[in-house]
Structure formats: structure tokens, C-alpha cells
């Protein structure tokens, strides 16, 4: 079941026609049908609130026989500490977050380094929709239709050298826009948020650089304008609002590991047999599927993606490399 929100206002009703047409051209060039966020300032907040549809193909290889978590739940229950530690905070505090212009700086052991406009990074690829399970380390889960491009394709285009063993990702650090990064204790995390993958994980076909969900431009609270989606790892590995990609030689620091090293490892693969020190990971609550008065469902090894990723960890003690 795919819920599509009808656009409350047609863009043409609000935006001046000349601008609107120019916008269509730009969007066609970018391979995006509609992305109001591409022209900041010109569009009123209510346009941004309306649906911004993306053009994409449905990747038939990544479908699930499980019901989707409703759009409303996916976009109002978020862990995005940059906008506050409450689950409802990001939807409230990220409404004015500026997602265009947006650049990503590529550094380290790669041939193509420098600062690139996000649209230029996305442009050479066609957007695809993939339906993935999302398992949070807090033992709840969702099923989300993401729209994005395979991370592996982007990594390959940046031509990492043989020295690049890991890829590090960095979230925007801007306390003025991200209230959670300032203030007392800063939610208990160090900013900016950093995450990382081993090179072979980054080159696996599963990870997505997502720019949308439910066929629409990624809502700010879900990590706009671009986030990682690594479906076999706990949700916090899927870093949001990425501004930097670094190709490095040794295992990069990661935010939750810095905050509580014995609770959150670098790998953080979904694993029902390795508990969080404070709670069990054996089962999970699937949100929005009407299972309120029902037992939790068992958590699957690698969140059900073992066939695609188990080989990456062959011979590794997953209790040690949690």
C-alpha cells in the first residue's frame, strides 16, 4: 500500500509563472520531476509542506512482502538529535531547515575530491525506489519506501584509491539551524555527527544515498536533503544531512560509539543474538502495522539481509565486533 499525499497547492498557483517554468527546466535537467526545495526563498513554506514528487523507477529487486509503515509515522517519529532528542522534535524543529543550495565535500584517498553541489552528485544517476526494513537500536522497526541512488555507484565515481579502506560521513554542523547541537549537554552527543562504513560495505549494492521517501523529496526531519540508508545495520548508522564524505585508511570514529563505546560498536549490524548491554535485541516492535495489542516480532539476523551481506563478516566474531 503506497499512500500518496495529494499536493495541497499546485506549484503554479503560488509561484510566478516564469519562475515556475524555469524551475521545470532545471528540474528536468536534474532528472527530478518536482523539487521545490531546489529554489530556496522563492517558495513559501506552504509549498514546501505540499508534496514534492520525485521521478524514479521502482527497483523490483528490493520489494518486501510486508506492509509499509504509514507516511505519517515515518515522518513524525524520528531520532535526529540535531533537532532535539524527543521523537516528535525533528518534525517540529526542522521545518525551516535549509536544504538548498547543498554541497558535499569529498576528501581523502580518492581521485575526485573537492566540493560538489548535491544536484551534480545525483544527476548522473537515475533515482530508484527500494523498500527496506529499518531497525532502530531501540527495538522498534519500520518498512520504508526510500528513493535514492546506490551508494556504491557514487563511491565508484569518486574513484577511491587503494589506500581508502573506510568511508567516513559527516553531518552538517550548524547549531543555528540545528537547535539540538547547542544548549545544555547537547543531547549527550558530540557534534558533528559522524559515521562510517568499511569499503566493502560501502560498495555492497544495498546502501542507498536517499533523497526521498514515499516518492517525495525527503522531509527535513528524515535527514534531508541526502542521507544514508544501510538496511542491515541499526538505524543510527544511516547518517542524515550529509555534507562530507571522506575516504580514509583506518576505521573512522562514529558518534554513538564515542558516546558509549561498550554499547554501540563500529559495525552495529542488526543481530538478535547480541543484546544491547541494557536491553534485548531479540525482538522488535513494528510501528504502524496495527500490532498494538500483539507481541513483538522476532528480529532477523542482519535485519533479514543476510543473503546479501553475511559474507562481509565471514570469520568475524560478531559478539566482539558488535
Amino acid at each position, binding site marked *: 500500500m503506497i499512500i500518496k499525499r495529494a499536493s495541497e497547492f499546485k506549484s503554479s498557483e503560488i509561484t510566478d509563472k516564469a519562475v515556475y517554468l524555469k524551475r521545470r527546466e532545471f528540474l528536468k535537467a536534474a532528472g527530478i520531476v518536482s523539487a521545490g526545495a531546489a529554489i530556496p526563498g522563492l517558495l513559501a513554506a506552504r509549498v514546501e509542506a505540499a508534496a514534492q514528487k520525485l521521478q524514479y523507477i521502482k527497483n523490483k529487486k528490493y520489494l518486501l512482502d510486508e506492509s509499509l509503515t504509514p507516511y505519517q509515522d515515518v515522518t513524525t517519529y524520528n531520532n535526529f*538529535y540535531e533537532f532535539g532528542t524527543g521523537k516528535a522534535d525533528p518534525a517540529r524543529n526542522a521545518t525551516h531547515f535549509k536544504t538548498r543550495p547543498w554541497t558535499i565535500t569529498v576528501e581523502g584517498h580518492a581521485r575526485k575530491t573537492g566540493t560538489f553541489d548535491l544536484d551534480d552528485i545525483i544527476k548522473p544517476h537515475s533515482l530508484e525506489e527500494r523498500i527496506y526494513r529499518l531497525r532502530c537500536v531501540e527495538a*522498534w522497526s519500520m518498512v520504508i519506501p526510500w528513493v535514492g541512488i546506490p551508494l556504491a555507484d557514487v563511491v565508484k565515481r569518486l574513484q577511491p584509491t587503494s589506500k581508502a579502506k573506510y568511508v567516513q560521513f559527516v553531518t552538517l554542523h550548524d547549531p543555528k539551524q540545528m537547535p539540538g547541537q547547542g544548549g545544555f549537554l547537547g543531547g549527550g552527543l558530540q557534534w558533528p555527527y559522524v559515521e562510517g562504513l568499511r569499503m566493502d560495505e560501502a560498495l555492497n549494492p544495498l546502501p542507498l544515498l536517499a533523497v526521498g521517501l514515499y516518492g517525495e523529496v525527503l522531509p527535513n526531519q528524515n535527514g534531508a536533503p541526502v542521507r544514508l540508508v544501510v538496511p542491515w545495520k541499526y538505524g543510527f548508522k544511516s547518517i542524515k544531512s550529509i555534507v562530507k564524505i571522506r575516504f580514509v585508511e583506518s576505521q573512522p570514529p562514529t558518534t554513538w560509539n564515542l558516546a558509549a563505546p561498550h554499547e554501540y560498536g563500529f559495525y552495529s549490524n542488526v543481530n538478535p543474538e547480541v543484546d544491547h548491554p*541494557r536491553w534485548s535485541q531479540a525482538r522488535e516492535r513494528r510501528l504502524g502495522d496495527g500490532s*498494538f495489542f500483539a507481541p513483538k516480532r522476532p528480529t532477523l539476523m542482519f535485519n533479514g539481509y543476510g543473503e546479501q551481506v553475511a559474507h562481509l563478516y565471514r570469520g568475524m566474531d560478531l559478539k566482539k565486533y558488535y
Partner: protein
Amino acid sequence: MAQPTSRQLVLIKVTLFLAALVPLAWLVLDGVQGRLSPNPVEAITHRTGDWILNFLMLTLSVTPLRKISGWHWLLRLRRMLGLFAFFYACLHFTTYIWLDQFFAMSEVWKDIAKRPYITVGFSAFVMLIPLALTSTNSMVKRLGAQRWRKLHRLVYVIAVFGVLHYLWLVKSDIRLPLAYGVVLITLLVLRVPSINQRITGLQRA
């Protein structure tokens, strides 16, 4: 209000009783209207948990407030406040056993034994039971005031365990549990004999 009449006191008690049920009514209303976030079980657990701590803190503030204000009748509200802490604790525990664990008792026992935050939370709940059972006037008489008072000092342990339970379950944002900790420490410090005497002296002067 230095000394309310007995009629006024009844009115105060009825008002307090109804006010103490507002958080529950609010929770039920939010539930019926689907406003309990996409994770209602978590929302119910957190909100009932918050109100256990709120009522524990209110219960513990009766004595210092009475000393500072000289309103000795406040003592007559303490039992109700304490029983409401127990009431919300029952709801909290039921939510955990039923909605969260779905009566998977082997899992529950594993949780209680293995997870320190659940161990202290469960212990606090168990300790509340004898306090609730001995809250009646006849039980005070049967136990004798001195033994009753001794038993009811358990509330200090319960409150400390309650705050620890909260502190140990959050992922990284410890601001709220810390706030409860500060309130609790203040309420406990006010009971230190030398400080207690100074307050009493202040009130007499």
C-alpha cells in the same frame, strides 16, 4: 491557609483526588484520539513512568513543605499522594508486562535479572506494595507508629531506585532524569537533621 476547617479539608482532598486522575484521563483521551505517537506502547510506558516519579516527589515534599509553611494539615494529603504513585506504578508495570512483553514471563524474568534498570525499577515497584498495604489507619495502629514509620522510610529507597531506573534507561540525553535527581537530592537534604532543625527554627522565629 494555616488551618482549613474539616469541610475545607474534604474539599481539598476531593480536588486533589480528581486532579491526580487528570494524567490518566489525558492519556486515555490521547490514546482514543490516536495522539500517542506512532509508538503508543512506549508513550504509555513513559507517561505512566513520569507520573510515578512526579507523585513520589510530591509525596516527599509534604514534610519539608509542612515545616517551611507551618501548614501541618498538608500531612493529611500525603497518603493519597503516595497511593497515586503506587497507582501509576501499577499502570506502568501492567503496560510493561502486558503491552510490551505480552506476558512472555520468561523474557520478563530475564529482563529483571539481567537489565540493571529493570532490576531497580522492579525492586522499587515491589517495595511500594507493602507501603500501599499498610497505608490504612488501622494498619498504622496494628504496626505501631514507630514500626510503621520505620517501614515507610522505604520510600527514600524507592525514590532513589525510581530515578536510577530512569537515568539508566535513557540513551544519551540525561537532562530529565538529572532534573528528577536534583529534586530528589534537594528533598532528601532537607531531611538532614541539622538542616531540618534550621528550617524548623526559621519557621518559629
